């Protein structure tokens, strides 16, 4: 907005050396009210210049640039790549790939595996019998409503114990088609002598394998390759720690 004073009469001119304005001619002025002044009087005046539109635009752009740059830096600093559970070709994800009924059997079997291992560690290295699991109300072995709805899976157990390694297989296949696929729980427990070294790959305490077919046989011995060749897939759970990493990053684990 312009801030200069317009005078028609008397004329005011600037004295460049004294930075003051002096009046010449008649003392009457309609706009400035300088009618009290007479020729030769001088007044100090200040010229108010406005911020022009270009400056304002530059200021806004600069501020926006600073905000965007800061946000970019913050995003880069706090960026976390989403962790995905990477699967091998012989594995399937229970969370992504199995149906609700199969998920149910898997989760029951997963919890049962913890109990079977717990019992093996406390009860003189024995693996619990299927009948015992059933009478202890341990799902998916117990014959309850869920068992009926998931195709009445029948379970068989096979001990594969050696001197140094205790292994047990529990295989379940549905009696009724259309419910679920077949499941194989493999529990492994090493009995190494103190100081003994082995080159064998370390196994998790248990693994769960899945076969789409209901017509499968209980394997006579256990090896990953044998199961893979036979069409079994190792089931990988999406676990609590995977979700914590996805939500919070590894720093909180």
């Amino acid at each position, binding site marked *: 907005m312009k801030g200069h004073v317009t005078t028609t009469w008397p004329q005011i001119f600037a004295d460049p050396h004294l930075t003051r304005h002096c009046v010449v001619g008649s003392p009457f002025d309609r706009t400035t009210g300088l009618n009290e002044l007479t020729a030769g009087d001088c007044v100090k005046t200040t010229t108010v210049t406005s911020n022009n539109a270009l400056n304002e635009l530059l200021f806004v752009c600069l501020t926006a640039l600073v905000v965007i740059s800061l946000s970019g830096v913050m995003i880069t600093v706090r960026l976390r790549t989403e962790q995905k559970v990477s699967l091998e070709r012989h594995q399937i994800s229970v*969370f992504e790939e199995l149906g609700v*009924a199969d998920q149910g059997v898997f*989760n029951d079997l997963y919890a049962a595996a*913890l109990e079977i291992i717990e019992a093996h560690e406390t009860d003189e290295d024995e693996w619990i019998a299927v009948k015992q699991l059933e009478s202890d109300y341990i799902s998916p072995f117990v014959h309850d*409503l*869920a068992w009926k709805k998931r195709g009445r899976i029948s379970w068989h157990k096979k001990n594969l114990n050696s001197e140094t390694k205790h292994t047990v297989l529990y295989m379940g296949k549905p009696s009724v088609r259309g419910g679920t696929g077949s499941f194989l729980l493999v529990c492994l427990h090493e009995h190494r002598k103190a100081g003994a070294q082995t080159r064998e790959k370390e196994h998790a305490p248990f693994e769960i394998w899945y076969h789409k077919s209901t017509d499968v046989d209980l394997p006579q011995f256990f090896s990953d390759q044998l199961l893979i060749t036979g069409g079994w897939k190792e089931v990988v759970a999406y676990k*609590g720690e995977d979700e*914590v990493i996805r939500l919070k990053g590894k720093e909180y684990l």
Partner: protein
Amino acid sequence: MRISKAGLILLMVGLLAGVPGLVKGKQAFAAEKKLRIGITLHPYFSYVKNIVGDRAEVVPLIGEGFNPHAYKPQPADIKKVTKLDALVLNGIGHDEFAFEILEASKMKGKIPLIYANEGVSLIPVTGTDTDRKTVNPHTFISVTASIQQIYNIRKKLSQLDPANTKVYRKNASAYVRRLRKMKAGYMKRLSDLKNLDFRCATIHGGYDYLLQEFGLQVTAVIEPAHGLKPTASQLARTIDRILQLNVDVIFTEMNLADKYIDTIQKETGIRIRYLSHLTTGEYSAEGFEKGLKANMEALTTALIEAHDRSNKK
């Protein structure tokens, strides 16, 4: 002052005799010093209390009257967390406040965090309007997923307090057996139901693990996202979906009074039943069992009713 040779020997013998006493005293102090284990949610109080018995102290991080979904940390929480030896938390939902308290008290990285769901197999929320799979964090509303958590917590506590490993193991096994037996009791009541096609809707997407115990699944969830109320158009769509899917019962939450639930009931005529989210009320050792029992009772009754109704048709 001169000390005679005999006097020096006597002093040494006296000091040596005192050492075992000192060691014993230190051991006794260690044995008496109980771990202070913090917990974020009600079920974790019950789990931990049943595992540790009187061998450790269980400290709820927030008071009884607060809703963990919307809890904002208080200054007193910061003081409380600095005095804990470990903190048991869900970590995948419901206890976001714990991370805020840890940050505010600068205790992040200084206190062992026991994620109850570590090693627990998670499932997606079913019955939603979208194809996107979202993790269901309600692992504590079930028997099977709780058993996994109890074993996990027991293992972690044994690492922190090895002197009590045997006690923790024994207590955890007894607690797990009790939970399994409780579930078996309800399952027995349902053993005669044949060809039951049970369909239920839930207001809150928190009951997938519970339904999974019974070989069932949620048909429709009414909340569009965790804790959000549906808009008018979403509600209209949900009502249509419930009617199309022939839903037998709608489960809402205890202590959740909302007009839209009345609207659904009025528009569909379907019976409303109540389930508990298990994250309110008094902190107690038996709280989880009581709450879960009430949930199983509600579900069992709904299943028997649905079965009788379908037989009459």
